[in-house]
Protein backbone atom coordinates (compact mmCIF):
# COMPACT_ATOMS: atom_id res chain seq x y z
CA UNK A 1 0.00 0.00 0.00
CA UNK A 2 1.05 3.60 -0.65
CA UNK A 3 0.48 5.89 2.34
CA UNK A 4 0.40 9.66 1.85
CA UNK A 5 0.51 12.00 4.85
CA UNK A 6 0.10 15.67 4.00
CA UNK A 7 -0.94 19.02 5.42
CA UNK A 8 -2.28 20.66 2.25
CA UNK A 9 -5.53 22.53 2.61
CA UNK A 10 -6.43 22.40 -1.03
CA UNK A 11 -5.70 18.74 -1.67
CA UNK A 12 -7.83 18.06 -4.73
CA UNK A 13 -5.15 16.08 -6.54
CA UNK A 14 -4.47 14.07 -3.39
CA UNK A 15 -8.19 13.48 -2.86
CA UNK A 16 -8.18 11.77 -6.23
CA UNK A 17 -5.21 9.68 -5.08
CA UNK A 18 -7.37 8.49 -2.19
CA UNK A 19 -9.68 6.88 -4.71
CA UNK A 20 -6.82 4.87 -6.21
CA UNK A 21 -6.60 1.25 -5.25
CA UNK A 22 -3.94 0.54 -2.66
CA UNK A 23 -3.44 4.18 -1.68
CA UNK A 24 -4.38 5.79 1.61
CA UNK A 25 -4.27 9.52 2.26
CA UNK A 26 -3.96 10.97 5.76
CA UNK A 27 -4.98 14.63 5.82
CA UNK A 28 -5.94 17.27 8.34
CA UNK A 29 -9.65 17.57 9.06
CA UNK A 30 -9.00 19.51 12.25
CA UNK A 31 -9.94 16.65 14.55
CA UNK A 32 -6.52 15.25 15.47
CA UNK A 33 -5.54 15.06 19.14
CA UNK A 34 -1.92 15.35 20.17
CA UNK A 35 0.14 12.55 21.71
CA UNK A 36 0.02 12.76 25.51
CA UNK A 37 3.17 10.71 26.09
CA UNK A 38 1.35 7.93 27.97
CA UNK A 39 3.04 5.01 26.15
CA UNK A 40 -0.40 3.35 26.07
CA UNK A 41 0.28 2.31 22.46
CA UNK A 42 3.08 0.12 23.88
CA UNK A 43 1.70 -1.10 27.21
CA UNK A 44 -2.10 -0.69 27.24
CA UNK A 45 -3.33 -1.35 23.71
CA UNK A 46 -0.09 -2.54 22.06
CA UNK A 47 0.07 -1.54 18.41
CA UNK A 48 -2.71 1.08 18.61
CA UNK A 49 -2.96 4.54 20.14
CA UNK A 50 -5.28 4.82 23.15
CA UNK A 51 -6.75 8.04 21.70
CA UNK A 52 -9.46 6.70 19.43
CA UNK A 53 -9.80 9.50 16.91
CA UNK A 54 -9.25 9.01 13.16
CA UNK A 55 -5.49 8.87 13.68
CA UNK A 56 -5.34 6.13 16.33
CA UNK A 57 -4.30 3.35 13.94
CA UNK A 58 -1.28 4.96 12.31
CA UNK A 59 0.99 2.10 13.43
CA UNK A 60 -1.22 -0.41 11.62
CA UNK A 61 -1.38 1.75 8.47
CA UNK A 62 2.41 2.03 8.43
CA UNK A 63 2.70 -1.75 8.81
CA UNK A 64 0.72 -2.22 5.62
CA UNK A 65 2.58 0.27 3.49
CA UNK A 66 5.66 -0.12 1.33
CA UNK A 67 5.79 3.50 0.19
CA UNK A 68 5.33 6.41 2.57
CA UNK A 69 5.02 9.87 1.05
CA UNK A 70 5.05 12.88 3.36
CA UNK A 71 4.18 16.35 2.07
CA UNK A 72 4.74 19.01 4.68
CA UNK A 73 5.38 22.66 5.13
CA UNK A 74 8.93 23.05 6.43
CA UNK A 75 8.84 24.49 9.95
CA UNK A 76 12.27 25.29 11.43
CA UNK A 77 13.77 22.35 9.55
CA UNK A 78 11.03 19.94 10.58
CA UNK A 79 7.48 19.01 9.73
CA UNK A 80 4.38 21.13 10.18
CA UNK A 81 2.40 20.61 13.42
CA UNK A 82 -0.21 18.38 11.73
CA UNK A 83 2.30 16.08 10.02
CA UNK A 84 4.43 15.96 13.18
CA UNK A 85 1.30 15.12 15.17
CA UNK A 86 0.57 12.17 12.86
CA UNK A 87 4.16 10.95 13.29
CA UNK A 88 4.03 11.42 17.07
CA UNK A 89 0.89 9.27 17.02
CA UNK A 90 2.66 6.59 14.93
CA UNK A 91 5.13 5.17 17.44
CA UNK A 92 3.00 2.04 17.88
CA UNK A 93 4.62 1.02 14.58
CA UNK A 94 7.77 0.23 16.58
CA UNK A 95 8.28 -1.66 19.83
CA UNK A 96 9.19 -0.15 23.19
CA UNK A 97 12.15 -2.54 23.35
CA UNK A 98 15.57 -1.30 22.34
CA UNK A 99 18.21 -2.36 19.87
CA UNK A 100 21.74 -0.99 19.46
CA UNK A 101 22.39 0.18 15.91
CA UNK A 102 25.56 2.01 14.89
CA UNK A 103 26.47 2.20 18.57
CA UNK A 104 23.25 4.04 19.45
CA UNK A 105 20.06 3.04 21.17
CA UNK A 106 16.96 2.77 18.97
CA UNK A 107 13.59 0.99 19.19
CA UNK A 108 13.12 -2.51 17.80
CA UNK A 109 10.80 -3.05 14.87
CA UNK A 110 7.33 -4.52 15.42
CA UNK A 111 6.57 -5.28 11.77
CA UNK A 112 8.61 -6.72 8.92
CA UNK A 113 7.38 -4.59 6.00
CA UNK A 114 9.88 -2.52 4.07
CA UNK A 115 9.13 1.17 3.65
CA UNK A 116 10.49 3.55 1.05
CA UNK A 117 10.13 7.02 2.61
CA UNK A 118 9.83 10.07 0.35
CA UNK A 119 9.53 13.49 1.97
CA UNK A 120 8.55 16.68 0.15
CA UNK A 121 9.01 19.89 2.10
CA UNK A 122 7.48 23.09 0.81
CA UNK A 123 7.65 26.72 1.85
CA UNK A 124 8.71 30.07 0.43
CA UNK A 125 11.38 31.02 2.94
CA UNK A 126 13.16 27.79 3.79
CA UNK A 127 16.71 28.73 4.80
CA UNK A 128 19.78 26.65 3.93
CA UNK A 129 20.20 25.81 7.58
CA UNK A 130 16.59 24.61 7.79
CA UNK A 131 17.20 22.44 4.74
CA UNK A 132 20.24 20.91 6.44
CA UNK A 133 18.22 20.25 9.60
CA UNK A 134 15.37 18.74 7.56
CA UNK A 135 17.75 16.37 5.78
CA UNK A 136 19.17 15.19 9.09
CA UNK A 137 15.65 14.79 10.47
CA UNK A 138 14.40 12.61 7.63
CA UNK A 139 17.54 10.48 7.84
CA UNK A 140 16.94 9.98 11.58
CA UNK A 141 13.21 9.27 11.06
CA UNK A 142 14.04 6.76 8.36
CA UNK A 143 16.49 5.03 10.70
CA UNK A 144 14.09 4.99 13.65
CA UNK A 145 11.12 3.74 11.59
CA UNK A 146 13.37 1.09 9.99
CA UNK A 147 12.78 2.38 6.47
CA UNK A 148 14.63 0.68 3.66
CA UNK A 149 15.29 3.88 1.68
CA UNK A 150 14.51 7.58 1.95
CA UNK A 151 14.66 10.76 -0.06
CA UNK A 152 14.11 14.44 0.75
CA UNK A 153 13.24 17.26 -1.59
CA UNK A 154 12.27 20.89 -1.24
CA UNK A 155 9.88 23.02 -3.23
CA UNK A 156 8.78 26.64 -3.16
CA UNK A 157 5.19 25.74 -3.84
CA UNK A 158 2.72 22.87 -4.13
CA UNK A 159 2.76 22.79 -7.93
CA UNK A 160 6.43 21.82 -7.90
CA UNK A 161 5.63 18.89 -5.61
CA UNK A 162 2.77 17.84 -7.82
CA UNK A 163 5.13 17.72 -10.79
CA UNK A 164 7.62 15.63 -8.84
CA UNK A 165 4.92 13.25 -7.63
CA UNK A 166 3.23 12.54 -10.91
Amino acid at each position, binding site marked *: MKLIIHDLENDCFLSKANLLEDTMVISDDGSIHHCIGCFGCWVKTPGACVIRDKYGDMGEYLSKCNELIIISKCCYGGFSPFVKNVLDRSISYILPYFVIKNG*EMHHKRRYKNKINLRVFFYGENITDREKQTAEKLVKANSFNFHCEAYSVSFADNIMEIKEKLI
Partner: protein
Amino acid sequence: MKIALINGSPRIKESASSYILKDLKSLIDDGQNIISEYHFSNPQVGEKYMNELIQCDAIVFAFPLYVDGIPSHLLNNLIKLEMFFSLNKEKDIMVYSIVNCGFYEGHQAKIAIEMMENWCKKSGLKWGQGLGIGAGAMMPFLRNIPAGSGPKKNIDYAVNQLACNILKSSSSENIFISPNFPGFLYRITAEMSFRRNIKENGLKVRDIYTRI
Protein backbone atom coordinates in the same frame (compact mmCIF):
# COMPACT_ATOMS: atom_id res chain seq x y z
CA MET B 1 16.18 39.70 35.48
CA LYS B 2 12.96 38.09 34.26
CA ILE B 3 13.26 34.42 33.38
CA ALA B 4 10.49 32.19 31.99
CA LEU B 5 10.69 28.43 32.44
CA ILE B 6 8.46 26.61 29.97
CA ASN B 7 7.70 22.95 30.48
CA GLY B 8 6.84 21.61 27.01
CA SER B 9 5.89 18.10 28.09
CA PRO B 10 2.34 16.97 27.32
CA ARG B 11 2.37 15.08 30.62
CA ILE B 12 0.51 16.88 33.37
CA LYS B 13 2.73 15.53 36.16
CA GLU B 14 5.86 13.48 36.78
CA SER B 15 7.50 14.53 33.51
CA ALA B 16 11.29 14.44 33.13
CA SER B 17 11.11 18.06 31.92
CA SER B 18 9.46 19.15 35.18
CA TYR B 19 12.23 17.56 37.27
CA ILE B 20 14.98 19.15 35.18
CA LEU B 21 13.33 22.56 35.40
CA LYS B 22 12.93 22.16 39.16
CA ASP B 23 16.69 21.60 39.50
CA LEU B 24 17.43 24.52 37.18
CA LYS B 25 15.09 26.82 39.09
CA SER B 26 16.90 26.13 42.35
CA LEU B 27 20.13 27.29 40.69
CA ILE B 28 18.85 30.53 39.19
CA ASP B 29 16.43 31.58 41.93
CA ASP B 30 18.63 33.94 43.95
CA GLY B 31 15.74 35.98 45.32
CA GLN B 32 16.36 38.84 42.90
CA ASN B 33 15.39 37.22 39.61
CA ILE B 34 11.71 37.06 38.75
CA ILE B 35 11.02 33.51 37.62
CA SER B 36 7.73 32.60 35.94
CA GLU B 37 6.78 29.01 35.24
CA TYR B 38 4.57 27.85 32.37
CA HIS B 39 3.34 24.48 31.25
CA PHE B 40 2.61 24.16 27.54
CA SER B 41 0.84 20.81 27.72
CA ASN B 42 -1.54 21.59 24.86
CA PRO B 43 -1.31 23.48 21.55
CA GLN B 44 -3.22 26.56 22.71
CA VAL B 45 -0.84 29.19 24.06
CA GLY B 46 -2.86 32.29 24.95
CA GLU B 47 -2.14 35.93 24.20
CA LYS B 48 -1.79 36.64 27.92
CA TYR B 49 1.18 34.27 28.14
CA MET B 50 2.71 35.67 24.96
CA ASN B 51 2.50 39.19 26.36
CA GLU B 52 4.24 38.02 29.52
CA LEU B 53 6.94 36.11 27.64
CA ILE B 54 7.94 39.08 25.51
CA GLN B 55 8.78 40.99 28.71
CA CYS B 56 11.35 38.36 29.71
CA ASP B 57 15.14 38.55 29.48
CA ALA B 58 15.46 34.79 29.08
CA ILE B 59 13.14 31.96 28.08
CA VAL B 60 14.03 28.37 28.88
CA PHE B 61 12.20 25.54 27.14
CA ALA B 62 12.34 21.97 28.45
CA PHE B 63 10.63 19.22 26.51
CA PRO B 64 10.86 15.54 25.59
CA LEU B 65 12.19 14.38 22.23
CA TYR B 66 9.33 13.07 20.07
CA VAL B 67 10.19 11.22 16.86
CA ASP B 68 13.56 12.99 16.59
CA GLY B 69 11.99 16.41 16.96
CA ILE B 70 9.75 18.82 18.85
CA PRO B 71 6.39 17.44 20.12
CA SER B 72 3.59 18.66 17.83
CA HIS B 73 1.63 20.55 20.50
CA LEU B 74 4.75 22.56 21.41
CA LEU B 75 5.52 23.15 17.73
CA ASN B 76 2.05 24.67 17.37
CA ASN B 77 2.82 27.05 20.23
CA LEU B 78 6.24 27.93 18.81
CA ILE B 79 4.62 28.96 15.52
CA LYS B 80 2.18 31.23 17.38
CA LEU B 81 5.04 32.68 19.41
CA GLU B 82 7.14 33.26 16.28
CA MET B 83 4.31 35.27 14.70
CA PHE B 84 3.85 37.25 17.90
CA PHE B 85 7.57 37.91 18.49
CA SER B 86 8.19 38.83 14.85
CA LEU B 87 5.65 41.65 15.09
CA ASN B 88 7.39 43.12 18.13
CA LYS B 89 10.75 44.55 17.16
CA GLU B 90 11.72 45.90 20.59
CA LYS B 91 12.94 42.83 22.40
CA ASP B 92 16.16 41.39 23.72
CA ILE B 93 15.46 37.83 24.75
CA MET B 94 17.89 34.92 25.16
CA VAL B 95 16.55 31.42 24.48
CA TYR B 96 17.80 28.22 26.11
CA SER B 97 16.46 24.73 25.41
CA ILE B 98 16.68 21.46 27.30
CA VAL B 99 15.64 18.33 25.42
CA ASN B 100 15.45 14.98 27.17
CA CYS B 101 15.25 11.80 25.14
CA GLY B 102 14.25 8.25 26.00
CA PHE B 103 17.34 6.92 24.29
CA TYR B 104 20.53 6.70 26.31
CA GLU B 105 22.54 9.11 24.18
CA GLY B 106 21.86 12.79 24.73
CA HIS B 107 23.23 13.62 21.29
CA GLN B 108 20.11 12.10 19.74
CA ALA B 109 18.44 15.38 20.72
CA LYS B 110 20.76 17.33 18.40
CA ILE B 111 18.21 17.76 15.61
CA ALA B 112 15.51 19.06 17.98
CA ILE B 113 18.00 21.57 19.43
CA GLU B 114 18.85 22.67 15.88
CA MET B 115 15.14 23.24 15.21
CA MET B 116 14.94 25.41 18.33
CA GLU B 117 17.90 27.43 17.04
CA ASN B 118 16.11 27.82 13.69
CA TRP B 119 12.94 28.93 15.51
CA CYS B 120 14.95 31.43 17.52
CA LYS B 121 16.37 32.99 14.38
CA LYS B 122 12.96 33.27 12.69
CA SER B 123 11.49 34.82 15.83
CA GLY B 124 14.23 37.43 16.11
CA LEU B 125 15.48 36.09 19.45
CA LYS B 126 19.05 35.30 20.57
CA TRP B 127 20.17 31.72 20.96
CA GLY B 128 21.76 31.00 24.32
CA GLN B 129 22.46 27.30 24.64
CA GLY B 130 20.95 23.87 24.12
CA LEU B 131 21.24 20.87 26.41
CA GLY B 132 20.42 17.35 25.21
CA ILE B 133 20.00 14.82 28.01
CA GLY B 134 19.87 11.07 27.37
CA ALA B 135 17.99 8.43 29.37
CA GLY B 136 15.26 10.93 30.22
CA ALA B 137 13.05 8.16 31.58
CA MET B 138 15.42 7.97 34.56
CA MET B 139 14.77 11.54 35.69
CA PRO B 140 11.83 10.87 38.03
CA PHE B 141 13.89 8.17 39.78
CA LEU B 142 16.86 10.46 40.36
CA ARG B 143 14.97 13.15 42.26
CA ASN B 144 16.16 12.04 45.71
CA ILE B 145 19.79 11.64 44.74
CA PRO B 146 21.98 14.47 46.13
CA ALA B 147 22.95 17.05 43.54
CA GLY B 148 26.17 16.39 41.65
CA SER B 149 26.57 12.79 42.71
CA GLY B 150 25.95 9.26 41.46
CA PRO B 151 24.06 8.89 38.17
CA LYS B 152 23.13 12.59 38.26
CA LYS B 153 26.71 13.86 38.20
CA ASN B 154 26.91 14.64 34.46
CA ILE B 155 23.38 16.00 34.29
CA ASP B 156 23.85 18.31 37.29
CA TYR B 157 27.16 19.56 35.92
CA ALA B 158 25.51 20.41 32.59
CA VAL B 159 22.46 22.01 34.23
CA ASN B 160 24.85 24.08 36.37
CA GLN B 161 26.65 25.32 33.27
CA LEU B 162 23.34 26.21 31.67
CA ALA B 163 22.25 28.07 34.82
CA CYS B 164 25.51 30.08 34.82
CA ASN B 165 24.94 31.07 31.18
CA ILE B 166 21.34 32.07 31.87
CA LEU B 167 22.41 34.28 34.78
CA LYS B 168 25.12 35.92 32.65
CA SER B 169 22.77 36.21 29.62
CA SER B 170 25.50 34.55 27.61
CA SER B 171 25.63 32.09 24.76
CA SER B 172 27.66 28.91 24.78
CA GLU B 173 28.17 25.64 22.90
CA ASN B 174 25.35 23.13 23.09
CA ILE B 175 25.92 20.24 25.50
CA PHE B 176 24.86 16.62 24.94
CA ILE B 177 25.17 14.19 27.82
CA SER B 178 24.10 10.84 29.22
CA PRO B 179 23.75 10.03 32.92
CA ASN B 180 26.54 8.35 34.90
CA PHE B 181 24.84 5.01 34.56
CA PRO B 182 25.78 2.19 32.18
CA GLY B 183 23.79 2.16 28.94
CA PHE B 184 23.12 -1.58 29.07
CA LEU B 185 21.69 -1.26 32.59
CA TYR B 186 19.46 1.61 31.49
CA ARG B 187 18.19 -0.56 28.64
CA ILE B 188 17.48 -3.52 30.95
CA THR B 189 15.74 -1.30 33.52
CA ALA B 190 13.61 0.50 30.93
CA GLU B 191 12.52 -2.77 29.31
CA MET B 192 11.68 -4.25 32.72
CA SER B 193 9.53 -1.23 33.41
CA PHE B 194 7.60 -1.75 30.12
CA ARG B 195 7.00 -5.41 31.08
CA ARG B 196 5.80 -4.37 34.54
CA ASN B 197 3.48 -1.75 33.02
CA ILE B 198 1.91 -4.17 30.56
CA LYS B 199 1.20 -6.67 33.36
CA GLU B 200 -0.33 -3.90 35.48
CA ASN B 201 -2.68 -3.29 32.55
CA GLY B 202 -3.89 -6.90 32.72
CA LEU B 203 -1.98 -8.07 29.64
CA LYS B 204 0.73 -10.67 29.16
CA VAL B 205 4.36 -9.74 28.52
CA ARG B 206 4.20 -11.33 25.05
CA ASP B 207 1.35 -8.94 24.16
CA ILE B 208 3.98 -6.21 23.80
CA TYR B 209 4.76 -7.81 20.40
CA THR B 210 1.12 -7.65 19.18
CA ARG B 211 0.78 -7.08 15.45
CA ILE B 212 -2.47 -5.65 14.15
